[in-house]
C-alpha cells in the first residue's frame, strides 16, 4: 500500500523556514491563495510558483515535496486537456486546430495553463507551510486564529487515523491473502475494507469513552498545553506579507493590461504539444495508479 496515501506531514529540519513561527507561514499560504484566485496572468502566477520553489529550496524539502506533486500534478494536467476543448471562458473562442470532433481553442489553452499554475502556486505554499511546521504547532496556531477546539481536535484525530487505518488495511489484506484469498484486483481489496471499517467504528467508540474518562467535554475553562510564541520578527513578516499582497492585489485589479487571454497567442504546434503532453501525462498516471492499487 505504500505510495498510495499521500504523505503530507512535517519534514524535520532546521532551516530558516522551519524556525519561523507557523503564523506567518499560514498567512503567506492564505495570501497566495487569494492572489492566485484574483489573477489569470501567467507571468504573475509563474512568479508566485518560482517564489514558492525558492521557499522549498531554502527549507530543503524537495524530495517529499516532489513526491506529493508527482501525484497531484498529473491530476492537474487534466485541466489543460479538458479546458483546451471546452474552455471555462466567455465566448467567442478562437480555434487553433481541429482534430476530428475536437477543436483546441486559444482561450482553452490559456485557461488550462493558468488554472494549473494557480493550483500549483497554492499547493506549493500550503505544502511548504505544512512540511516545515510541527503538526502540534500548526494546530495550536489554527486554534489561535480562531479555529474551534472541537474542529481542531477532529482534524488532529483524522490525521492520526489515516496511517493507522492504512496499516490495518495492509495487515488485513495480507492475512486474507495468507488464508488463500486470491490476492489481485478489487475483488481482494473489497473484503478487506469491511473489517477495517468495522475496526474503525470500534476504535472511535473506544476512543470516545477513553477521552470522556479524561474529562474531555467538561464545561469549565480549558487551558492549552501547546502554545505558539509570536516574536517581533514574525509580526514584521506578517506585516510585510500583508502589504505585499495588498500592493499586488491593487496592481492586479487596476491594470487591465494584465489580461493576456487574447494577446498571448499559442502557436498551433505549441498548443498541440501542450495538449498531447497533458493527456499522455495524465493517462500514464492513471495506469500507474491502477497498477499500484491492484498490486497492494
Amino acid at each position, binding site marked *: 500500500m505504500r505510495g498510495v496515501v499521500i504523505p503530507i506531514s512535517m519534514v524535520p529540519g532546521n532551516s530558516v523556514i522551519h524556525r519561523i513561527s507557523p503564523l506567518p507561514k499560514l498567512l503567506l499560504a492564505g495570501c497566495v491563495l487569494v492572489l492566485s484566485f484574483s489573477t489569470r496572468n501567467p507571468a504573475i502566477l509563474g512568479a508566485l510558483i518560482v517564489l514558492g520553489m525558492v521557499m522549498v529550496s531554502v527549507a530543503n524539502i524537495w524530495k517529499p515535496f516532489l513526491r506529493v506533486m508527482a501525484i497531484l500534478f498529473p491530476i492537474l494536467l487534466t485541466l489543460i486537456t479538458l479546458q483546451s476543448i471546452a474552455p471555462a471562458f466567455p465566448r467567442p473562442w478562437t480555434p487553433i486546430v481541429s482534430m476530428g470532433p475536437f477543436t483546441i481553442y486559444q482561450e482553452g489553452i490559456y485557461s488550462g495553463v493558468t488554472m494549473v499554475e494557480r493550483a500549483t502556486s497554492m499547493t506549493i505554499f500550503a505544502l511548504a507551510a505544512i512540511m516545515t511546521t*510541527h*503538526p*502540534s504547532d500548526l*494546530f495550536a496556531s489554527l486554534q489561535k486564529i480562531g479555529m474551534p477546539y472541537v474542529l481542531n481536535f477532529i482534524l*488532529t*484525530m483524522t490525521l*492520526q487515523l489515516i*496511517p*493507522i487505518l492504512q496499516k490495518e488495511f495492509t495487515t488485513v489484506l495480507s492475512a486474507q491473502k495468507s488464508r488463500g484469498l486470491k490476492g489481485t484486483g478489487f475483488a481482494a481489496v473489497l473484503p478487506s475494507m469491511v473489517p477495517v471499517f468495522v475496526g474503525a467504528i*470500534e*476504535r472511535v467508540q*473506544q*476512543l*470516545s*469513552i*477513553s*477521552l*470522556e*474518562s*479524561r*474529562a*474531555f*467535554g*467538561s464545561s*469549565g*475553562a*480549558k*487551558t*492549552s*498545553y*501547546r*502554545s505558539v510564541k509570536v516574536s517581533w520578527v514574525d509580526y514584521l513578516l506578517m506585516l510585510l506579507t500583508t502589504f505585499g499582497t495588498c500592493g499586488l492585489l491593487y496592481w492586479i485589479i487596476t491594470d487591465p493590461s494584465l489580461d493576456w487571454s487574447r494577446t498571448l497567442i499559442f502557436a498551433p504546434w505549441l498548443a498541440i504539444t501542450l495538449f498531447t503532453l497533458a493527456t499522455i501525462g495524465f493517462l500514464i498516471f492513471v495506469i500507474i495508479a491502477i497498477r499500484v492499487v491492484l498490486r497492494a
Partner: protein
Amino acid sequence: MSGEKPILEIKDLTFTYAGAETPALKNINLQIFEGEYVALLGLNGSGKTTLQLCINAVIPHMIMGDMEGSVTVQDLDTAEYPTRELAKIVGVVFDNPEFQLSQMSVAEEIALGLENLGVAVEEMNPIIHEVLDIVGLSGLGDRSPFELSGGQQQRLSIAAALAMRPQILVMDEPTSNVDPIGKEEVFAVAAKLNRERKMTVIMAEHEVEVMAAYANRIIVMDHGEVILNGTPTEVFSQLDVLEKAGLRVPQVTEMAYRLEHDRSAHWNSVYPVTTEEAFQRIAPLFGGKHD
C-alpha cells in the same frame, strides 16, 4: 476494615444492554476500600468489562441500557455524575493500547486531560514529568504515542490517567494486547502504584499467577454474577467452583490439590497460591536445613 467507609460501593446492580435479552450484570453487591488491589477474573463475556464501565459512569451515561441498583464512588452516585466529572476520581485503562491514544506526542497525550480540567499551563510540565517518571517513560515526551511499544503505550495510558490524580485505577485486561516483557512492565507499574501510593487498583485479568501474587482480593464473575469474592487464598481454594466457571487456578495451587488427592497431603483447605507460599510449606517435608 469494618468501620471504614468503602471508596466504591455497588448495591443491587443489574444492567441489561439495550436490545439484549439477558442482563450482562445480575444483582451485584460489592464494597471496595481504599488501597485495595482487586483482581476481576472470569471468562470472556462474564461481565468484567461491563462492571468496570459502571465504575466511572460510562454506564449509564454513555452506553444505553437498563440499569437498576446503584454505584457510588467517593460518595458520588454515578447516576448523577457523568464520566467526565469522575475523571479526578477514577482513571481507566482499556485493553487495546492504540484505541486510547489520539495526540501527536506523549507529553500532549498526558496534557489532554489537564487541559480539559483547566490546569494552568505552568503546572503541566511538572505533572507530565512526574507521571512519566512513575510509569518509567521519562525522556519520551516528544515521541509519537503511536511509535511506542504496546507495553509503553499502556503505561502511557496509565500516566495519562494518573495526571488527573485519581484514587481508583480501573484496568480492563491491560496486557491482553501486549508482548510478555510489556506485560511485566504494566503489572509492575500497577503494583508500585498500589503499594507506594495507596492507589486502589481494580484489574480484569486472565493471568491467575500474576493476580495471586499482586492482588489482595479476587472477585470471580460468571454469567454476570459474582460467584466468589475473597483473598487469593480463599478464592483459589475453591477449585471446584472455579472449574465449573471454566477458570484455572495458579499452577502451584493445582499441584497442591493433586498432592492432596493422590498423595494424601493435607493443607487444611488453605492452599498455597504463589510459588513462595508453596515453597514455604513444601520445603519442610524434605527435611534438611532451612532458615
